[in-house]
């Protein structure tokens, strides 16, 4: 049964990932779908609500348009809608329908912008981006594509610097809420950053346009990694992967950021590794960047010897340890679990526990919108920085 999932049936799709990156960017976002794809995102994966004000729309494609061509209706509706809602750019998000019929999203986007300009609705020709998602991948792939599209379209080397640090990968779907973003910005300022920008939060396309001038890029989720690496290749901007969980990591991360802002080249080494078979064992099933920070926290502050990470989503080689597991099918994951000595602690989204065939000594539910949608969004703790030590101390040592 290699291809069949029995316990866990759904994960956020790539177009939801793309939308989670774009929908706070002040653009007009168009899902090239029949309605359900966009509905799934807005009502399932956007915990912020306020749906009425968002500039996020469905093209409401129907069979007739799919057969005859989607361009005409899409352009017509986009122009009519833009007149009422405005926006700094147009983004077209692909879905299974647009992928199967091979829609030229880039071309349509450009034509919409041209039409808006020709009809004097915009003063100058706006930019459009096309995120070629197809619903076949998970959210992380969609986010990666959206970040790439934003970087390709808007970074302008002639723009003067508006920020000194870029944080990429902090989206609601990965549990980055207002509080966690505020904590991150504060910590970066403590580390010496003067104008830290979190893409999609305090950073819109204006701030992104000056991204080539920043001193440091930080990827805080797996979907930001490709972009920070690309920006390094293109502009030589140093980058950091990860964010701190726990007191020790917070001190070290702050120091690292501080050094990098001073232009020092620092050696990136693994914070910890699996040691001591007699010590406790933990498994973390989560998005890789967060899971790795949690792993270090458990090893450094809670005496866990073996901590393995498993993820349904992309796993970057630089963060992956020998026994980490990419969950591509449930059967192999079950085999993996059987092969391991029983874990004492399992940390995962509440929906994931149905895949675990035994009851570990301790389990900690850490909701992830990409897995359980917004159902537990408010029950998920913000454990950014030093708070993680306090949170896990309460649970692991005091049993709260």
């Amino acid at each position, binding site marked *: *049964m290699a*291809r*069949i999932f*029995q316990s866990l*049936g*759904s*994960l956020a*799709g790539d177009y*939801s990932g793309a939308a989670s990156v774009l929908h706070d960017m*002040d653009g007009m976002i*168009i899902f090239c*779908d029949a*309605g*359900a*794809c*966009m*509905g*799934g995102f*807005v*009502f*399932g994966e956007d*915990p*912020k*609500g306020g*749906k*009425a004000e968002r500039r*996020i*729309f*469905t093209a409401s494609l*129907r*069979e007739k348009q799919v057969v005859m061509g989607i361009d005409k209706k899409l352009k017509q*509706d*986009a122009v*009519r*809608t833009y007149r*009422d*809602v405005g926006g700094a750019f147009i983004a077209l998000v692909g*879905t*299974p*329908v647009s992928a*199967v019929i091979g829609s030229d999203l880039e071309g349509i986007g450009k034509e919409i912008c041209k039409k808006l300009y020709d009809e004097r609705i915009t003063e100058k020709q706006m930019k459009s981006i096309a995120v070629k998602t197809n*619903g*076949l991948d998970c959210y992380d792939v969609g986010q990666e594509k959206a970040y790439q599209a934003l970087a390709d379209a808007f970074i302008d080397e002639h723009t003067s610097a*508006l920020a000194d640090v870029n944080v990429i990968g902090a989206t609601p779907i990965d*549990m980055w*809420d*207002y509080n966690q973003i505020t904590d991150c*910005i504060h910590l970066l300022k403590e580390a010496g950053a*003067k104008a830290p*920008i979190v893409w999609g939060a*305090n*950073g819109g396309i*204006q*701030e992104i346009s000056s991204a080539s001038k920043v001193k440091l890029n930080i990827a805080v989720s797996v979907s930001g990694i490709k972009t920070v690496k690309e920006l390094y290749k293109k502009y030589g901007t140093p980058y950091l992967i990860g964010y701190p969980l726990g007191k020790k990591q917070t001190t070290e991360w702050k120091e690292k950021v501080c050094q990098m802002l001073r232009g020092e080249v620092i050696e990136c080494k693994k914070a910890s590794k699996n040691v001591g078979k007699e010590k406790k064992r933990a498994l973390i099933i989560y998005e890789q960047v967060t899971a790795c920070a949690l792993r270090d926290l458990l090893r450094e502050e809670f005496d866990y010897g073996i901590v393995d990470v498993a993820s349904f989503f992309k796993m970057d080689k630089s963060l992956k340890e020998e026994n980490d597991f990419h969950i591509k099918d449930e059967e192999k994951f079950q085999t993996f679990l059987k092969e391991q000595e029983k874990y004492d602690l399992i940390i995962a989204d509440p929906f994931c526990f*149905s895949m675990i065939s035994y009851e570990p000594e301790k389990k900690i539910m850490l909701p992830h919108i990409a897995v359980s949608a917004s159902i537990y*969004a*408010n029950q998920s*703790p*913000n454990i950014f920085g030093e*708070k993680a030590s306090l949170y896990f101390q309460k649970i692991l040592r005091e049993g709260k």
Partner: protein
Amino acid sequence: MDKKEMKIYTSEEVCEYLNKPGLKKTEQAKFLREGFRCFGAGERGMGGLSRTAKFIPESIHIIVSPVACQRHCDFDLKINGYTDGVYSIFLSEQEIVGGKVVEVLKKEILNLLQTLSPQPKVITITVTCIDGLIRSDYAGLEQMLMKEYGIRFGVVEMFPILADNKIKHTDQFPHMVYGRIKADPEKPKKKLINLIGKIDLVDPTTDFYTVLGKAGYEVREIRQCQTLEEFDEMGEACLNVVLSYFNLHAAKMMETKYKIPYFFWNQHMDFETIRSNYEELERILECSLSIEPYYQQAKEKAEEARRLAKGKTFAVSQRLDYIPVKAACDLAAVGFDIVSVFVDKIDRKDLKYYEWMKENSPHTKIYLAPDISMRTYMQSPESVDFAVGGIPALKNVENLRTLNLPEEPYDFTTYCRVMDKLIEQLKCEEKRDVPDIISAEESVFARQWKDYPKGVV
């Protein structure tokens, strides 16, 4: 934008539009949505399609789609407690492009069958838009499963892309579900009445069950069937009572396939209509049904609601499990002052309701809810006391209270329940004792799901 440019009409204007043949395109355009759909889409969700397939007893269900589409069905199934016997296959691009969907499914089903004990008697699958475009042929798989395993097979098509077609996917899925019944159409019919198209959970204590029981008829809903034999017995019923338009297509199929006549129960939030439905049923069954005490109770409830609603104004949402203009008529008939109705589209099949509104509540305005102009309207909306169902365009109305309604009632008991709910909510408003939403506990770990201001560092 000038309010004249907004898609807001009187019922008289709507009636004139719907009654006038051969309108020019420019005249028609005034009543059609422009721009992208406002305030989102897919609000109702489509996960219910898979859930309905899972109502078939002794069945398993497999969602065969891209990973992103699975979310709709999977969540609905989970939230409603259908976790056993539900499986997912995430399709890859190669499988779709290479036309291998059926091959993959067949392989997985055969593997799965080896692990299941007892074996399922029915396998249903949900496919999505992408399959609607590539049109996989499942006939061979269906034949193989029947021939080699005696397993029935059915496909639920979740194709929002066909939402404007004459026969929609929402018509097709009940057709598929009830089409799995195996029954001899020539066999004498039992004193069994199928109730089809009900969304709410089975409740055999309502008057529909009671009065028909007293008359010697058993009422059966699909969810009451514990075994496939009980499900097949639905094919021996003497009548199908159809509650929703969605299920009409299935009822017509059952009339042809199993020779079961159907009666479209004119479902209304109105006790007089419920009574006339029963009268029609008495005629069809040639028996007398004792409904009087239930009728009187419903009448009293309506009177109480009317008293509480006096002096208040109401707006009706397009997001209800009701046809909004129909719900507006029903509430207006009770005595509610309906000032606005938010509809999804101006539909000819609703003409009778607009005509009723024109005669009985001419001041009620009709709003084309998904039109982009509603975003502008939202900035300075007209005042109203209550929204029946959530209405995004009224988000900025001060002191607006939202009344929630359960599923549209079909008999007197369910009618009384809806009225009770309205009464309870109206009473809360009267006493002003509805507690505010309890704010989340102030905690160092708390979340705040709101936007971060741009450019602020």
